């Protein structure tokens, strides 16, 4: 095909695709539930189409169907066409599919560690793609692999060629995966949340890399994500999916500025803004006072040997009544360590954690027991935070029963806590698997609040939730803070979430506090270069989602 012909007709055409759950194994004759219904869109060469949707929308299933990777015996494409350069994937034989993969269509997955074979050197793994699809000599293959590693901007390529995946960082691994995907210059690249597991600074680099390679080779890119910031950065066109159907398609401007469907409008406006609102200064009493907190792992002991690692050094901050203090940082910054130390799930090496008058940093477990109820924690993963074998009611009253409350009283308080988080009272009779992720997180918040703590620690509590559910839970925290008057320590890596609800921000890097101050000051006038880099790397800074327009440049912002 000539270049102009390619440019005119789409590289990927999906028409009327329906994917159902395969019931034939269980002997049922009724067609299974449709996971994707009547999906249609196309992608041209050199274009980036972003598929956005919440969990369960069917976006990953679409990409798997395109690659011919639908899990057998579970899902089956029951209707529609998927055409790559005119060839129908759904009708292709297994052999033909194998030829097409990597040479015409390639995929990059979310988790770079599990995408690479941990017992094989990465150079070999990239080489395997060439070995399977070409007849080049070994020397020529190695030359091409090294050239590809160069083009994904990996440093020291000779050493990396011989490295194992565990010796590389997450960003480097993802570059290797991209190298494997693009080495045969496929016409179509499908990227399924490739940057979700990476730090925001690494994410920026990977997005730039994909854009660069796309411009060089004219690849059609399908980018699946739930992060609207990323969409605002890289999309040419957007496909919005919900529950397996397309809600709306359009250009980037059309969807972000003038969405026609209610669902799209709801989704876009749920994205928190990077610019924090002005807040009243907090003048109430200090509930939590942390000073000189240190946590060192691997100190030389009787049986241990090895270099000590300071996970947290000289941490100091306060949380006042009614205040939400945010700790932001990338992975490895020590923010989760600080959260766990404060709740005494791990024991700090030294320092002071003052809850009112009492210092709980280094006291023994017997003295700690009565203090535990004053500081409670909500975890990141709502699917693992509740014991799946116990009814929700039992989980909520467990803490109260531990402190001697009678069962009748505890049940009553649990009902009140459930009302506070907006769940119906009959939830106590249900099991966790009967609730959605957002609802489970509310249950965890109820479980923490029923203890009537002074401080609530939220350790990435909304990171695993869809953006619309996230907005609800954040609103809930805001309401709880006002009604109950507790102090909240909010750990997050997402600056948007931090800017939405935090009064004070603490920025951490490599176990130390880099910058601290009111959220407004830190986000609009960052003093430290690291903070500035963090804010710069946040995708979608140029777009104001809540108001469906490009963001108005801040007059006081220092570039």
């Amino acid at each position: 095909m000539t270049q102009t012909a390619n440019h005119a007709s789409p590289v990927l055409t999906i028409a009327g695709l329906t994917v159902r759950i395969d019931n034939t194994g269980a002997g049922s004759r009724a067609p299974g539930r449709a996971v994707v219904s009547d999906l249609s869109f196309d992608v041209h060469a050199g274009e980036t189409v972003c598929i956005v949707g919440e969990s369960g929308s069917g976006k990953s299933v679409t990409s798997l169907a395109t690659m011919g990777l639908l899990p057998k015996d579970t899902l089956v494409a029951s209707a529609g066409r998927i055409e790559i350069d005119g060839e129908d994937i759904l009708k292709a034989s297994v052999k033909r599919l194998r030829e097409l993969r990597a040479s015409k269509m390639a995929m990059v997955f979310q988790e770079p560690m599990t995408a690479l074979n941990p017992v094989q050197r990465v150079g070999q793994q990239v080489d395997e793609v060439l070995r399977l699809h070409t007849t080049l000599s070994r020397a020529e293959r190695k030359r091409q692999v090294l050239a590809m590693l160069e083009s994904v901007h990996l440093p020291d390529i000779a050493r990396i060629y011989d490295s194992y995946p565990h010796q590389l960082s997450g960003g480097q691994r993802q570059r290797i995966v991209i190298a494997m995907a693009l080495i045969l210059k496929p016409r179509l690249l499908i990227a399924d949340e490739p940057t979700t597991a990476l730090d925001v600074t690494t994410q920026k680099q990977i997005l730039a890399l994909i854009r660069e390679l796309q411009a060089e080779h004219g690849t059609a890119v399908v980018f699946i994500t739930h992060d609207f910031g990323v969409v605002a950065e890289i999309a040419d066109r957007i496909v919005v999916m919900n529950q397996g159907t397309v809600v709306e398609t359009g250009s980037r401007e059309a969807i972000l500025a003038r969405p026609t469907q209610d669902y799209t409008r709801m989704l876009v406006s749920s994205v928190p803004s990077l610019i924090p609102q002005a807040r009243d200064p907090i003048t109430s009493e200090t509930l939590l006072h942390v000073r000189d907190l240190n946590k060192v792992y691997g100190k030389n002991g009787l049986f241990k040997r090895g270099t000590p690692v300071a996970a947290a050094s000289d941490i100091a901050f306060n949380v006042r009544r009614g205040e939400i203090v945010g700790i932001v940082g990338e992975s490895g910054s020590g923010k989760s360590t600080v959260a766990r130390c404060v709740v005494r799930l791990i024991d700090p090496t030294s320092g002071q954690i003052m809850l009112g008058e009492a210092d709980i940093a280094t006291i023994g477990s017997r003295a700690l027991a009565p203090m535990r109820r004053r500081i409670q924690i909500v975890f990141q993963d709502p699917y693992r935070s509740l014991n799946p074998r116990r009814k929700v009611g039992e989980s909520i009253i467990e803490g109260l029963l531990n402190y001697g409350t009678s069962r009748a009283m505890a049940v009553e308080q649990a009902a009140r806590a459930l009302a506070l988080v907006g769940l119906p009272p009959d939830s106590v009779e249900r099991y966790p698997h009967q609730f959605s992720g957002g609802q489970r997180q509310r249950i965890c918040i109820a479980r923490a609040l029923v203890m009537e703590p002074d401080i609530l620690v939220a350790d990435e509590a909304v990171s695993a939730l869809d953006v619309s559910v996230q907005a609800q839970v954040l609103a809930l925290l805001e309401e709880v803070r006002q009604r109950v008057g507790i102090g909240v320590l909010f750990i997050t890596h997402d600056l948007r979430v931090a800017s939405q609800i935090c009064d004070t921000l603490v920025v951490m890097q490599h176990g130390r506090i880099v910058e601290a101050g009111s959220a407004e000051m830190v986000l609009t006038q960052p003093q430290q270069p690291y903070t500035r880099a963090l804010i710069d790397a946040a995708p979608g800074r140029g777009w104001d989602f809540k108001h469906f327009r490009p963001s108005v440049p801040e007059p006081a912002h220092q570039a």
Partner: protein
Amino acid sequence: MSSSANTALATPGTAPAAIRSPFRRTLSSVPVIIALAALAIMVIMALFAPWLHTIDPVQIDPTQRLKPPSGAHWLGTDAYGRDVYSRVVYGARVSLVVGLGVAAFSMVVGLAIGVAAGYFRWVDAIVMRIMDGLMAIPGVLLAIALVSLSGASLTTVLVAITIPEVPRVVRLVRSVILSVRNEPYVEAAVSLGTPTFTLMLRHLVPNTMAPLIVQGTYIFASAILTEAILSFLGAGVPPEISSWGNIMSEGRSYFQLIPGLVLYPGILLSLTVLSVNVLGDAMRDVLDPRMSRRL
């Protein structure tokens, strides 16, 4: 609060439908049905031994030595004139008691030690070295040594067979506890002030039940076999108690005359062990996929 929070509760009871089909499918496979039937026969033999046309298994009748099967003695007689059929039927009792007893004791002891080893690091360091040491000694040899130390009786045999089986259970329980210990819901229980022992019973132990039950069936089979070996070698239950191993041991010398003395208990032994193993496999197929889907 927005209305969607109150109205959008997930449809209840979606999980059980998916669980029932592998259970039913496994139960309806032919090997499993045969295994269940075989075990049922053994249990009936053991429970109702006096009423199954048996006579006293230790009753000696020197005039009827080594007779082939006949109307009076369905499987013939042994070297002392005892009715082989009665001995074999009563032998089922010993085997089942030993199998159940060993399985139960080793599971209880293994569970207790395993939970402690999984949860407390210092206990882990000490206990696992002891377990490694125990596992290094061949089970049968260890059992023989223990029996010879304390003399032959059913209790001694039970204890002697239990001890070599415990390390495997400890390892299994410990690995489950290690993986569950760091789950957020366990950490949540800690932060809610749940005392350690209650935490273990309520949140950790239920996760061990499925693999423990599967392991229990394998221990059951292994214990029956070990008891037969011990009795065969003369280091098992005292000779007045008829056990399949005993019968085979005594029948060894007369194999050419009356092969039945070795064959009949041998067949029953093999059948029992095979059935228990088939059931263990079936249970693992039922319980494990459900476990991994739950998690």
